Structure formats: structure tokens, C-alpha cells
């Protein structure tokens, strides 16, 4: 997630180069080889060249340019590109950014293309994931890879605490957490970094009442459901089952998980590769993944990941769509999984050997049938940050949960104020 600094300066040169390039292309509108610019982010950007090589060879009429962005700067760069009208043709888009870019009227709806496509079969995609690319019934992107949060756990510690299977629901989870704490009071049962909101969002999504109402205008953090989730989360800190730490305060997740400093950790698919690579040898066969337990039985979790979107300003939408279709083929997605460890959004890709035989991925397959998108408003990231801040204050004892929830709801509604005004004026769809 944190690419080298040199990438930044290289990026500047690339952007400059693109500007020059666009000037040249702009003069010659009947260029025989249309330039299709593809913005890719992070690790995915690194493997894309290789992944797309067969496609580029099969399409000599198209000049496909892959431009890499670091995750840390990608969001700001996208917004700047929209503001400066210098958007690429295709972009890898974090699913939570879709509402923002739709609000900016930057993306091209793809419903027509999807319904005519022989490759992109809508029903083959996990529902919760497909929903993240939709705004008011219109599809703006095609899911590329998925990300959801679930449990990573230490099998050996769980066994020593007297359990031979991961938790099914909160009650069982609670018993296991308490039993693990008893093994060694100096260690913790679970690590919930205070600087992450994702675990709380996942637990909150398991309740019936959504964070924001149907009209996408009012916050609902005062619901009983959300209060229950937060109560459960807070009780882990109150009983010292979770450490009051951010992930900056431990040496790093892998070392501490290997040492047994904590036995449960809520994280996403990228950590499968990291755990395989970084955990000490003696615990390599002592860890596994499991679906996230819910209040009553298996629970829901966040529908994350990234999608492929085509920008409205693109002059080469047809060529861009061909790229999207190519990357959506199950065989290509299987290769993509081999290169990055990213999990595919299509059920048919999950049947292919390279991924069906991955024991750590199985839990994700189960979880993916039960994922929910986060609220699709551009302000979501800011509201989620308020949630993180609230939790930190409550954990540190600055105020109690009810006061915290009241503040969270007020702040979220303040953040949504402009949206409500625009909705009332009818200027916003």
C-alpha cells in the first residue's frame, strides 16, 4: 500500500509526458492508433502490463498506455484530474469512491454495454459487490477484484483454549475471546486497531438498519442495532480482550500475530499473501481464515475492492470497454489472482483450480455471498472517519457510548447538510 517515493517523481514525469502526448494526439484526431490511457493503482498497476500483454498483441490497432498511481495519492489525483478535465479512459476505482465520482458526473454508465456483452454476465457477480458500482439503479463500473473483511485466527491458540472450530456467532466468539485471555493475561484475544474503522463498519453492517436512510440524506447511527454492534465492540476493550492500540503501536501485525500477542484479527484478502510470506515458520500451519461471526449466526461484512470504470470524457470508450471485457474473463481473472492474490468478483472464476484449491480463500468465498456495500454517498469516507474518532474517544474513556453515538449522529448529519439541501432543491439525482 505504500509504494516507493521514486514512484511519485516518475509519476510526475509520466503525467507531463501524457500532457505532451495528448497535445500531439489532440492535433491529429484521425490518428490510426487511438491511445487508451489506463490508470491503475498500487500492486495491481505493477502486474497489469504483464496481464494485458496478450490483449495488446491481439489488438495492434490500439495503443494501450498503463499509468501507475500509488494508493496514497490516487484519490486526490483522481479528483484533480476531474477538476482539470484530464481524466484517463479507464481507471481502477476503489468501490467506495464510485459515489464521489458519480457526484462529479465523471463516469460513463455501462448498463447498455453490459446487457450486450457476452463476457460480462451480471448474474455471475456476487450481488453485494455488483451493488457497490451502482447509484440509483445505474451501473457505473464493473467489479474487478473484491475485498471483504473477515477473521484471521490462530488455530493452535484456539485449541489450547478448548475450541476446535472458529466462532459461528457473537456469543460463541465472546466465549472464545474470554477463554483465550485466560491463557495468558499479558496477551490479548483480538487486535482491533484504534486507527481503523473497517471492523466497526463490518459489525455495524450486520444489523438491519443501514447507517444512512433510504433517501441517502440522514444518518441513522442512533438505531438500536448499531448501538448493539458498538456495545459488543466496546465491551472487548472494557474487558481487556482487545488492546487499546493503533497498528502504529505494535511492531507490526505479522510479528505480533506470530508471537501470539493476539489470536484474532479482522482483515482482508491481501493479508493471505502477507501472512504466508511474513509469519514465522513454526506458526505457518497454525493459522486460518473464517467468515465473520454475526449477532445470530454467520454475519455480513463489507463489500470492498476495486472496479473498472470508463470516464465520460473518454474519446475511446469502445476500445476501453474491450479492455474491461478482457480483464473480466474468468481465465484472465484466474491469472490475475495468481499474480496478486486478489480475489475475483465472479462465481465462475472461483471454480477454476488456481483459486478453488486455496484453503485460505475458502472463507472469503463463503463471506462474499454475504457482503453489503457501505452507504453510497460521497461523504461516506468522512463519516466513517468520524466513527473511528468516536470509537477512540469512547475506548479511552473521554465519554460514554451513548454520548459518543449522539455526537457521531450529529456530526454525520452536519456533514450531510449540503447533500440534503441539494436533494431538497432537486439539483441532485
Amino acid at each position, binding site marked *: 500500500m505504500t509504494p516507493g517515493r521514486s514512484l511519485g517523481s516518475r509519476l510526475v514525469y509520466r503525467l507531463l509526458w501524457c500532457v505532451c502526448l495528448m497535445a500531439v494526439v489532440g492535433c491529429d484526431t484521425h490518428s490510426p492508433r487511438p491511445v487508451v490511457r489506463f490508470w491503475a493503482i498500487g500492486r495491481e498497476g505493477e502486474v497489469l502490463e504483464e496481464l494485458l500483454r496478450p490483449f495488446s498483441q491481439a489488438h495492434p490497432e490500439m495503443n494501450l498506455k498503463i499509468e501507475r498511481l500509488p494508493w496514497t495519492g490516487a484519490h*486526490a489525483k483522481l*479528483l484533480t484530474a*476531474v*477538476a482539470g478535465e484530464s481524466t484517463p479512459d479507464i481507471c481502477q476505482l476503489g468501490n467506495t469512491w464510485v459515489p*464521489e465520482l458519480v*457526484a*462529479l*458526473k*465523471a463516469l460513463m454508465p455501462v448498463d447498455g454495454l453490459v446487457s450486450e456483452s457476452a463476457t460480462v454476465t451480471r448474474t455471475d457477480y456476487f450481488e453485494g459487490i455488483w451493488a457497490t458500482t451502482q447509484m440509483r439503479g445505474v451501473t457505473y463500473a464493473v467489479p474487478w477484484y473484491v475485498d471483504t473483511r473477515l477473521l484471521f485466527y490462530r488455530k493452535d491458540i484456539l485449541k489450547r483454549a478448548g475450541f476446535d472450530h472458529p466462532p459461528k456467532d457473537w456469543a460463541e466468539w465472546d466465549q472464545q475471546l474470554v477463554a483465550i485471555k485466560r491463557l495468558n493475561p499479558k496477551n490479548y484475544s483480538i487486535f482491533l486497531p*484504534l*486507527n481503523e474503522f473497517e471492523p466497526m463498519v463490518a459489525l455495524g453492517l450486520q444489523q438491519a438498519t443501514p447507517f444512512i436512510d433510504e433517501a441517502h440524506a440522514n444518518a441513522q447511527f442512533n438505531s438500536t442495532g448499531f448501538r448493539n454492534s458498538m456495545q459488543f465492540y466496546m465491551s472487548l476493550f472494557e474487558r481487556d480482550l482487545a488492546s*487499546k*492500540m*493503533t497498528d*502504529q*503501536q505494535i*511492531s507490526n501485525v505479522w510479528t505480533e500475530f506470530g508471537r501470539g500477542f493476539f489470536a484474532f484479527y479482522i482483515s482482508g484478502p491481501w493479508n493471505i499473501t502477507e501472512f504466508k510470506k511474513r509469519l514465522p515458520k513454526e506458526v505457518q500451519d497454525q493459522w486460518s481464515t473464517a467468515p465473520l461471526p454475526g449477532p445470530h449466526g454467520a454475519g455480513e461484512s463489507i463489500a470492498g475492492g476495486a472496479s473498472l470504470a470508463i470516464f465520460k470524457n473518454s474519446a475511446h470508450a469502445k476500445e476501453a470497454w474491450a479492455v474491461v471485457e478482457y480483464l473480466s474473463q474468468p481465465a484472465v481473472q484466474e491469472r490475475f489472482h495468481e499474480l496478486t492474490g486478489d480475489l475475483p468478483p465472479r462465481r465462475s472464476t472461483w471454480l477454476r483450480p488456481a483459486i478453488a484449491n486455496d484453503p485460505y480463500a475458502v472463507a472469503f468465498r463463503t463471506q462474499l455471498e454475504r457482503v453489503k456495500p457501505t452507504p453510497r454517498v*460521497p*461523504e461516506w*469516507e*468522512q463519516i466513517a472517519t468520524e466513527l473511528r*474518532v468516536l470509537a*477512540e*474517544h469512547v475506548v*479511552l474513556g*473521554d465519554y460514554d457510548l451513548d454520548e459518543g453515538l449522539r455526537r457521531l449522529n450529529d456530526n454525520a448529519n452536519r456533514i450531510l447538510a*449540503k*447533500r440534503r439541501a*441539494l436533494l431538497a432543491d432537486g*439539483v*441532485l439525482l
Partner: protein
Amino acid sequence: MNARFNGWWFAAPAVGILMVFFFLPILAAFALSLTDFDIYALADISRLRFIGLKNYIDLLSTPLFWKALGNTCWFVLLGVPLSLVTSILMALLLSSAWVRLKGFWRTSLFVPVVTTLVGSALVFRYLLHTRYGLINYSLSQLGFSPIDWLGNPQYSMPAIVLFAVWKNFGYNMVILLAAIQAIPIELYEAAQLDGAGPWQRFWHITRPGIAPTFTFVGILTVAGYFQLFAEPYVMTQGGPAQSTLSVLYLLYDEGFKWWNLGRASAIAFLLFLIIYVVTLLQRRLSPESQL
């Protein structure tokens, strides 16, 4: 050709550049601070609303703004005296006759100023680590219990101050050193002949000799420390529990993370006003200043 205007011709390029790249953007930012420019306005400028002073009123009634201002003032109150005292002590040490290898020490003490902030912040994060850090290890050797420097809201700001002072004192030190060396050596010789001790020589010769420089350095340091941003950005991301969130950090969050550019501009002007008033007070309080 009127001689009075000749000067303006020479100054014109500089004035022009200042106008275009400094005063115009400031005016634009002020105009922006009177609107609710945000992501919706970025999409469609017709969604931009002129809201007068509402951003300012909103900010002044937001607890988070006051918290950020409180944090920033706390940082200035702790950091500026500590930084100035360290600078002057080091400058005095470096100018004293019995220190050998002056060039070496001067360079070593100045090195933190020119090292990259991110790199040294990472090292400080290791040093300040609760369980594996050298600072807590030393404290435990002295019999103190470990301090959760970057995780406890009470200690996070002192930790940031420690880092900022270490990083910045060399700059002031070099300026003060130059001022000390500019004092004629004859004054010290004459005082010594008259029987003045080291303390008397410091108080009656060095102190008045460097007073104008000291005021200057003080004003620069206060103005600089009010703009606290990079240190908490790298070390704590404003946490824990917003205890290291500074005014400038709030501006960054509002403007560049959430694209509420109207609100962010308002914060910028409030911060400017605060620094302006504090600087005026500082000048008022130091009558020997010749600035």
C-alpha cells in the same frame, strides 16, 4: 523620465510575480472562504453558494476547531521556549573558547535541520515505541514505568514537541551563533580587565548584543510552530483521540481529504489572523527590537 518612477521599473518584475502568484491567490482564497465550495460544486459550479461568513461562524462554534487550536497553542507554549533555550545554549557552547572540533559539532547539531522529516520521524517512532523503544528502555533503567508516548493523549504532544525541537533547534542555533560571533571581542577583553565574571559578561555584553536577533528568531519560531503539520502527519496522523490534531492539520483534512475548500480557506484565514496578532504582541513586548 521621473526619477521617482525609476525604482518601480526595477521592482516591477518582482512586484508582478508577487501579485500574480501571491496576492491574487490570497484574494481568491478569501473569496473561496465566503462560499461553500465542495465536491458538489466541483462537479457543477452552479451548486456553489455564497454563504458570507457562515464558514467562519461554523468553525468558531465547532468544538474540533477549538480543540485543534488548543493543541496548537499547547505545542507552541511547550515547543517555542524549549527550542529557543536549546538553540541559545548550544550557540553559547559552540562559541565558548574551550570547545574543540567546533566545525564538527556545529555540523552535527545542524544535521537534523537538513535531514528529511519523514525519515527522522520514522526513527523517532522507533525510539518512542512503548515496548521496544530506546527512550522507554532508558526510562526503565532509571526505574520509571514505560510511557505510551504516541498512544496516550497526554504524552503524544510532548513527544511531538521533543521531535520538533530536535529537528528545528539547529536552524536558530546557527543564526544566534552568527550574532554572538559578530559581537566585538574587544568588549569581552575590556570587561574582563574591569573584573567582570562570565555571568556578568553574558548578561551585559552577549545578551544585549544578540537581543535583536533573538527577537527575530523568536518571531520566526512562533510563526513556524503555529503551522504545525508535518510532524503529527507522519508520527500520529493527528491521534490518539485527536490530541495532536493541529489547526493546519484540520485545514488539510477539510481541504484536501474532503474537498471542502470553502471551509479550508476559512481555517487558513483564521490561522493567519491568529499568527498576525501573536506576532504583533511579540513585537510590542520586546522594546529592544530593532525590526
